[in-house]
């Protein structure tokens, strides 16, 4: 079903042929409101058609935005708003001159239209600019900083934009400025737009993908524009939207991390992440504050002379050929590849340090008095991870070996290079896998420092992510490792130990010896359950017992192995495996008492193992339900339990030993988390 307004397409299909006719000498150019000569269609947004026109009265080019079949009752409101907007004059804002209503006569059919008269800018919007010119990060950031000035100026006048997005920033060839366009016109006035996209006043919302959570609920404010600005800049720098545009409320609130984070220039990550906070109070207080933060971390070299970035490819009819957008920040270096700066009192600009090849000897150690938290982590670390839980139990106990090189820049932003050297499963890589990323340092409630970062070791487009979260313990770092084979759910989790120097000692596989937040991340299923565990148990210095995690997040996706196993059993496709050493080996670890959460309900399980077959008693914690179940383990250590036939209870499928994670039931599926009872 098309989301573009049908009346817009109708208008476009009427106007287009008419203009071709004019070009062929048939008929006169269409005249709007007896004043504007329509000359060419420029674009079609979701709500209005943009047309280049000539204002016969003032003898200048204008851009008209046409809204066919507007709601009559809202026209006056639009005109009032336009009057306010018309007072905005700023180099980085495309001026809106007027709003009026008329009937456009095309081919004898009068078409009622609200139209907005705007300054005409003969340049591409940022989206088209990036697609065609491939500017590097510095130029993109400069463009956004400039457009941000305009937006901030509007905020200071009490005017919100409501629809900040890359398509609403245009690049003006005349004054080489990035300018923001389409203010306040989230009040779109179309007749047959998608009903769900309107607020209670019949006004269409802004573009959902860029909208702040509170704006989606109709409470737009200054920090909503800030949010949209950050989403736009993020997208333009990384090529990915930080949030899935289809994400509902809960996802926005509980997003584990933003897409594309590893492609972001590390220096800008903290400021942008803050601006993307779900809670407006967590964001910067104003756009001006965000701009200042970004500007401080984006070191532009002084411009010697305006160098043209890209020359147009010959003289063509298109608007952006032959134009030079001389934003500073030009040059070969892109932020992600800039060499880490040496830390000295007189901070050297990154460009003045020769880029170091990866795996080169370490730079000189940092000065003794740390300026910021990140500095105590700089240098080289050897890291070992050990798998505690995996979708395929083959991996349990396997160790991974890494090297981590960390450095800070003058603004205390941490960047890191992770190299995976090998693993105890005896895999050798033809060449080591390497990834760069930003890392973040946070202080926990107990004052402890935590260092976290996410790395993609298998190429840009693959979703495989390694997330490390560690804290100092003596001279070492300890913590947890979470591995995502696909983008939305962990496929392995484990413990991490890191040390400086040539070797790391063996990882202590006893989870109870790991820091409490790491235990939460490994044992609890879902971001909210983990957060609750950290804030309720760890903060009070408690220890996680078998009951340490409360109910899993109901919407946490189960491991793929468990999901597939469950689906196979319910559809009758599962075949019992012939008992083999492998499944016997896995099954041995499963015998005994368990504590299980099935969705929101806590249960107990007593498992008896016979070869690869399982049998057990499942009991609700309050004793209200008890029933027998039988099942089996397969060679991947994935296991299921089927209630005896007379019992109306769901089938369970889980992967792993302690914890075991999975799902129950066919549809809807409840998440399952099981811990060995001690």
């Amino acid at each position: 079903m098309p989301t573009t307004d049908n009346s817009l397409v109708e208008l476009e299909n009427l106007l287009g042929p008419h203009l071709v006719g004019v070009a062929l000498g048939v008929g006169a150019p269409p005249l709007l409101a007896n004043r504007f000569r329509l000359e060419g269609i420029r674009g079609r947004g979701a709500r209005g058609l943009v047309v280049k026109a000539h204002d016969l009265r003032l003898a200048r080019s204008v851009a008209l935005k046409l809204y066919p079949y507007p709601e009559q009752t809202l026209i006056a409101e639009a005109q009032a708003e336009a009057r306010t907007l018309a007072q905005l004059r700023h180099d980085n804002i495309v001026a809106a001159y007027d709003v009026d209503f008329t009937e456009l006569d095309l081919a004898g059919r009068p078409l009622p239209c609200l139209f907005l008269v705007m300054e005409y800018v003969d340049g591409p919007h940022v989206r088209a600019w990036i697609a065609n010119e491939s500017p590097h990060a510095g130029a993109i950031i400069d463009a956004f900083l400039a457009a941000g000035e305009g937006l901030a100026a509007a905020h200071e006048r009490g005017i919100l934009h409501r629809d900040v997005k890359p398509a609403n920033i245009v690049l003006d060839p005349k004054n080489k400025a990035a300018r923001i366009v389409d203010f306040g016109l989230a009040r779109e006035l179309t007749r047959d737009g998608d009903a769900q996209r309107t607020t209670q006043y019949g006004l269409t919302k802004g573009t959902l993908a860029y909208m702040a959570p509170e704006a989606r609920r109709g409470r737009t404010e200054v920090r909503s524009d800030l949010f949209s600005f950050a989403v736009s800049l993020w997208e333009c720098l990384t090529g990915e939207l930080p949030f899935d545009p289809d994400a509902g409320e809960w996802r926005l609130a509980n997003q584990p991390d933003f897409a594309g984070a590893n492609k972001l220039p590390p220096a800008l990550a903290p400021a942008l992440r803050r601006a993307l906070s779900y809670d407006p109070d967590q964001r910067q207080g104003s756009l001006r504050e965000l701009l200042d933060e970004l500007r401080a971390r984006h070191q532009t070299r002084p411009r010697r002379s305006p160098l043209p970035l890209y020359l147009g490819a010959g003289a063509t009819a298109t608007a952006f050929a032959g134009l030079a957008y001389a934003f500073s920040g030009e040059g070969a270096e892109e932020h992600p590849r800039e060499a880490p700066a040496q830390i000295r009192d007189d901070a050297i600009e990154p460009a003045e340090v020769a880029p170091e090849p990866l795996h080169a000897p370490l730079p000189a150690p940092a000065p003794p008095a740390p300026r910021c938290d990140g500095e105590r982590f700089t240098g080289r670390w050897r890291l070992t991870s050990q798998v505690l839980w995996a979708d395929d139990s083959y991996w349990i106990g396997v160790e991974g070996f890494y090297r981590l090189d960390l450095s800070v820049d003058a603004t205390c932003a941490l960047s890191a290079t992770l190299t995976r050297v090998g693993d105890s499963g005896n895999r050798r890589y033809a060449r080591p896998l390497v990834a760069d990323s930003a890392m973040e340092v946070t202080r926990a409630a107990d004052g402890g420092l935590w260092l976290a970062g996410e790395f993609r070791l298998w190429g840009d487009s693959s979703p495989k992510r390694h997330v490390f979260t560690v804290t100092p313990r003596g001279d070492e770092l300890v913590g947890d490792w979470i591995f995502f084979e696909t983008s939305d759910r962990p496929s392995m989790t484990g413990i991490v130990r890191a040390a400086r120097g040539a070797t790391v000692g063996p990882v202590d596989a006893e989870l109870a010896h790991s820091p409490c937040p790491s235990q939460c991340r490994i044992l609890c299923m879902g971001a909210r359950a983990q957060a609750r565990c950290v804030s309720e148990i760890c903060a009070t210095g408690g220890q996680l017992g078998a009951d340490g995690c409360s109910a899993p997040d109901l919407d946490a996706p189960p491991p793929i192995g468990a999901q597939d196993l469950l689906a196979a059993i319910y559809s009758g496709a599962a075949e019992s495996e012939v008992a083999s050493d492998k499944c016997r080996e896995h099954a041995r670890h499963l015998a005994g008492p368990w504590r299980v959460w099935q969705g929101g309900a806590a249960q107990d399980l007593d498992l008896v193992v016979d070869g690869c077959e399982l049998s057990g008693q499942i009991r609700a914690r309050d004793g209200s339900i008890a029933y027998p179940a039988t099942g089996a383990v397969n060679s991947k250590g994935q296991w299921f339990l089927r209630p005896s036939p007379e019992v109306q209870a769901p089938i369970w499928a889980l992967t792993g030993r302690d914890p075991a994670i999975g799902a129950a039931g066919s549809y809807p599926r409840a998440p399952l988390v099981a811990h060995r009872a001690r």
Partner: protein
Amino acid sequence: MQPQSNAAIDPLIQDNWPKLKRFFRAKVPEPDCYELVQDTLMEFVKKHREKVLDNPRAYLWGIARFKVLKYIGGKRSATAEFDSKIHSVMGPQTTLSVRFDRRDKLMNALRSLTAEQQIAFELHYGEGMTNEEVAQTMELSPATAKRRIKEARERLQILLANSSHLEIADAYRSG
């Protein structure tokens, strides 16, 4: 300037403008897509006036195809020669994700085909051309045209597991 109201616009232009527009919109950014529509129609009308064409539709779409391939070829960097049999209209220069709504998802899958596959698919399923007409427009043998259409359909089915190619054709036509 005396406006001639209701000047009779050639039905040929009236009918084909929307079709060419959605064809170009699916491959070329605004505002250039509109210029290409205009250029195509102007060239076609000129030729149409000069002589009688055997198959005007194939000729019109042949111009459109030629213009879009020339446009895309002109936009790519000097180091990567555009080859419509291999490259899609979204070159490596397209760095932005456009995953906003269902129609965009469908259109982006379409745009990720090779240019030839995309055009063959659109002409056949979007414009209702037969195999033979597609072949004539694209200057291919009928067997090759058929193969391009099939490749397009299969690849779309892989990219969009829960959409049929007909849904994609609908999305294309609504543009």
